[in-house]
């Protein structure tokens, strides 16, 4: 491992910002959302307002999450090559090769870890799926919110879904997808940490500062 490493600015500020806003929002939304579905804290006196606050925090975090997703969506059109749709959606032969290489690596069929300056093809595909799940959570969440909030915003963001799906079905999948996103977050942190320790390319630090350290061979 003697190849010279280059310092590359991979993650621009909006990418890092939306990443951390998402982290805070997902944790907040999961805790408050779980409480709303299964109120595990019980008020002793009627003067308390636990469910009221949980719902308020959930709704505020939901709006913050929507804004974050919109910014990231926009940045996928105007950001650098690592932030764009092209880096996320596998469409080149190199990405497909990389994708199957990564799957082989994670299934212990290969010793070559996936490696890229930006997202690996495997990570890009997973993020696209997660992004779709985010959009589902937003639409289904606002569909449920529209029952008590009769504004145009919640109507557009999800109110229309109540005419398509039964409310209880919306509620069930809004709840279940939370677990899928949390499972993703656990795997996401583990894989980041694992690749960091394996490749020593500063991948874990890069989401704070934006820079990764790469050897020449990753350049296309």
């Amino acid at each position, binding site marked *: 491992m003697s190849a010279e490493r280059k310092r590359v600015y991979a993650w621009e500020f909006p990418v890092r910002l939306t990443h951390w806003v998402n982290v805070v929002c997902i944790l907040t939304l999961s805790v408050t959302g779980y409480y709303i579905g299964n*109120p595990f804290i019980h008020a002793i006196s*009627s003067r308390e307002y636990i*469910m*009221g606050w949980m719902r308020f925090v959930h709704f505020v975090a939901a709006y913050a999450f929507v804004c974050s997703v919109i910014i990231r969506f926009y940045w996928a059109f105007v950001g650098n090559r690592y932030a764009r749709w092209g880096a996320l959606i596998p469409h080149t032969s190199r990405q497909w090769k990389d994708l199957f290489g990564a799957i082989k690596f994670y299934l212990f069929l290969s010793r070559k870890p996936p490696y890229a300056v930006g997202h690996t093809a495997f990570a890009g595909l997973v993020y696209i799926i997660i992004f779709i799940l985010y959009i589902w959570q937003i639409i289904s969440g606002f569909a449920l919110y529209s*029952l008590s909030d009769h504004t145009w915003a919640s109507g557009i963001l999800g109110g229309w879904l109540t005419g398509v799906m039964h409310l209880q079905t919306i*509620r069930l999948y809004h*709840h279940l997808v939370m677990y899928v996103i949390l*499972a993703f977050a656990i795997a996401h942190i*583990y894989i980041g940490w694992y690749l960091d320790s394996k490749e020593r390319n500063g991948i874990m630090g890069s989401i704070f500062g934006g820079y990764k350290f790469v050897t020449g061979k990753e350049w296309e």
Partner: protein
Amino acid sequence: MGRGAFHDDSGGETVYETLRNRGLTRRDFLTFCTMMAATLALPASFAPRIAEALEKKKKPTVVWLEFQDCAGNTEALLRASAPTVKELVLDILNVEYHETIMAAAGHQAEKSLEDVVKNLKGQYITIVEGSIPLKDGGVYCCVGGRAAIDIVKEVCSGALATIAVGTCAAYGGIPAAAPNPTGAVGVSDAIPGLKVVNLPGCPVNVENITATIVHFLTFGSLPSLDKLGRPLFAYGKRIHDNCERRAHFDAGQFVRQWGDEGHRQGWCLYEMGCKGPETFKNCPRIKYNEGTSWPVGAGHGCIGCAEPAFWDKMAPFYRRLPQPPGFGVEKTADKVGAGLAAVTGAAIVAHGIGRVIAGGKKEKTEE
């Protein structure tokens, strides 16, 4: 809709005359008009307008059809306990045909229906109770040798207005629950294109039937409906948002077990699977049995009986969330989620151990 259909030009009793002949005072009559204004979510200033309409207009002729039902809506109609309202409900309508309460039977009974359809075309109101089976040519529900679908098509097409009372007539209800062996549907699905006022509920609140007809008599039109054909005055608001126990929900005070301290204190039934947050109806306002009580008031959660497909979709009635598809009935959403997290954790541990072993091997071979 013919505005003047009930106008009393040709003799016959008006609603008010009937009530007066039955011994009601003018005060009782005005009380009823004010109550109707309140049920219709109109300001009290509309009560005189309702009174005027009821004084002048002829009693509407009504035929009440029953198909796949339990007569629960009929029971709700008849069990109005306070005598004034019972009389009001029965006397305001000129019920020409109603299998359960009419004296005539057999061919005589069927003849009275035929007479209405023939002689009062476009002037009577049809109330339908119960779902209509469509499978196998509709053989699963026949009245007087005719399939329900044939009767409902003929009677409703000549009616001034059709009101579907109860969840079965509105959406198919319990007969339409999976696997729906008879192919049961509600009136609006049985006759596509027919304008139907849906008054779902199991049973319907009688006040909502009366208010719908009073609206029709007063304004000459049906009340404004939502996209499911339900009048907004009765189905525009969620039960949860008008619930008498709502303050306990916001505070975080929940019943956790039947008969526990919270249950005795009248706390929120959310954790016991109350479906008030997904059900639209005015139950908390008008209640049942002359405003005596309603399910949540009596300490039992709402089961969402007024919503489409409630038997399939609102179940289990005592849990917040439905069962995830493809799992055993004892699995709840949380168990599935916990299982998913456990699988993820296990995969990571296995992967980590696998890599440590593989990494060790690799280093050895490199040496």
